[in-house]
C-alpha cells in the first residue's frame, strides 16, 4: 500500500495518479487503434475526453442533488477538488450518455467505435488494479494462504494483485486478437466477455462484496449475465458479417 507519494514537500495521491496515467495511456492507445478500425483518429480522443469531463461534472451534480440543502447553503462546495464528494455510478452513466450523443452527432459507426475502444479499456483495467494496490481498495477476504498480505487488520487474499495479473492477461489476449480481421463488434465483445469472466472469477476472493439474497455476491451475478450476453452477441455479430 502506498496511498501517498511524498516528493519533497508535495504529497501526491498515488492511486489517483495511477488512474490518470491509465486514462492517458488508454486514450492514446484508442487513438492509435482508430485507423485499424477505419475511423478518423482525432474523433475518438474527443469522445473519451467528453465522456470524462461530462462524467466528472455529472458525478458532482448528482452528489450535490443528494444533499441539495447543504449545497444551496454552500454553493462553492460544488467546485471542491475533493473526490469523496462524487457519485461515481451516476457520474459514469452521465458520461456514457454524453458519449452516445457525441457518437451519434459525429455519425460514428457503433460497433467499429467500440472495437477501437477495446484495447484502451483493457489498458485502463490494468491501471485500476495498480491503483487498488496503492490504495488498498478492492481488498480480499481473510485467508491463510502462504501469499496472504496484511491489510486492514487481517491476513487477506491479495486480490489487487490477482486483478492486475488477470488484467494483463486480458490485455495481451486483446492485443493478439485485434490483429485478426474480425466482423465489427467481435473484438469489443471479446474484451467484454473476458472482463466479465475476470470479475466473476475474482469476486470470489474479495472481502468487500455487495451481497444479495443473503449469500450471493452481486458483482458475480452481473458478471455472469454480461458474459453470457456478450458471448451471444459475438455469434450475432459473426452471423451478420
Amino acid at each position: 500500500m502506498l496511498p501517498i507519494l511524498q516528493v519533497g514537500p508535495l504529497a501526491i495521491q498515488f492511486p489517483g495518479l495511477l488512474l490518470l496515467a491509465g486514462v492517458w495511456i488508454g486514450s492514446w492507445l484508442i487513438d492509435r487503434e482508430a485507423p485499424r478500425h477505419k475511423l478518423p483518429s482525432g474523433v475518438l480522443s474527443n469522445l473519451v475526453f467528453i465522456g470524462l469531463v461530462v462524467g466528472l461534472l455529472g458525478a458532482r451534480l448528482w452528489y450535490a442533488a443528494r444533499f441539495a440543502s447543504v449545497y444551496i447553503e454552500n454553493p462553492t462546495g460544488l467546485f471542491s477538488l475533493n473526490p469523496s464528494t462524487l457519485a461515481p455510478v451516476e457520474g459514469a452513466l452521465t458520461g456514457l450518455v454524453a458519449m452516445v450523443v457525441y457518437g451519434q452527432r459525429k455519425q460514428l459507426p457503433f460497433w467499429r467505435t467500440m472495437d477501437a475502444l477495446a484495447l484502451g479499456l483493457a489498458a485502463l483495467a490494468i491501471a485500476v488494479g495498480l491503483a487498488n494496490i496503492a490504495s488498498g481498495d478492492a481488498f480480499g477476504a481473510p485467508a491463510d494462504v502462504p501469499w496472504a498480505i496484511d491489510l486492514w487488520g487481517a491476513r487477506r487474499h491479495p486480490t489487487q494483485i490477482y486483478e492486475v495479473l488477470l488484467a494483463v492477461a486480458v490485455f495481451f489476449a486483446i492485443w493478439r486478437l485485434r490483429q485478426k480481421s474480425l466482423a465489427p463488434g467481435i473484438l469489443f465483445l471479446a474484451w467484454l466477455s473476458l472482463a466479465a469472466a475476470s470479475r466473476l472469477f475474482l469476486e470470489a476472493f474479495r472481502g468487500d462484496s455487495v451481497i444479495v439474497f443473503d449469500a450471493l455476491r452481486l458483482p458475480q451475478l452481473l458478471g455472469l449475465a454480461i458474459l453470457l450476453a456478450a458471448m451471444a452477441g459475438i455469434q450475432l455479430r459473426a452471423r451478420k458479417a
Partner: protein
Amino acid sequence: MSSEGTIEAFVKSRRWYGFIALALVVGAGWIWLSAVPAAASTGDLIPSPREGFLAPDFSLDLLGGGEVVLSEQKGKGVIVNLWASWCPPCRAEMPAIQRVYEANRDRGLEVLAVNLTYQDGEREAANFAAEFGLTFPIPLDRTGTVARQYQLRALPTTFFVDREGVIQKVIIGGPMSEATIQTAVEEILEAGS
C-alpha cells in the same frame, strides 16, 4: 483455412452454443461455491482506519484537562480530525469544522480534533484553539499512538465515524469545504441512527 476463418467459423457454429452453456454452468457453479453469509463480507468488527471498518479505539488526554475515549462516544456521530498547528490546510479547514460542529451538535455530532502533539506542542495547540475559538474537545496525541493506529500519511486526515463506531468516510488531505464536511456528517448521522 486462416485463423480468422477458424474463429469466425467457430463462433458461428453450434459448438459456440455449447460453449455458452458451459460458461453458464461453470459460472453458476462458481457463484454457488463462493457464496458467503451476508455478515462474512463486511469488516464491521475489525478495527482498521478504513471505510466500513470499526474505528480504532483510543484514549487520550484533552487540551485543558480531562480525558476522552473514542468508544465511549457510541450513539454519536464523531469526526476524528488529525491536525497540527503548523499545517496550513489544517488551519484553513478548522473554521469550517467549527461551524459544522455548532450546527449539528444537537443532532448528536461530536468532533475530536486530535492534535499530533508529538510533532507539535501543547502551547501551539492551545494558541491555535484560542485563535479559531474552537469549542470541541482537542485530544493530545503525545506519543504518536493514534497517528500509527490510523496509518496517518498526510495532514490533515479526517475520519467520519457513525453512531455504531464504524468509519463511513475517510478524507485524506485538505482543506475540506464546509459542504464536504456537512454531507459527510449527514451520512454518519443517518447511518446507524
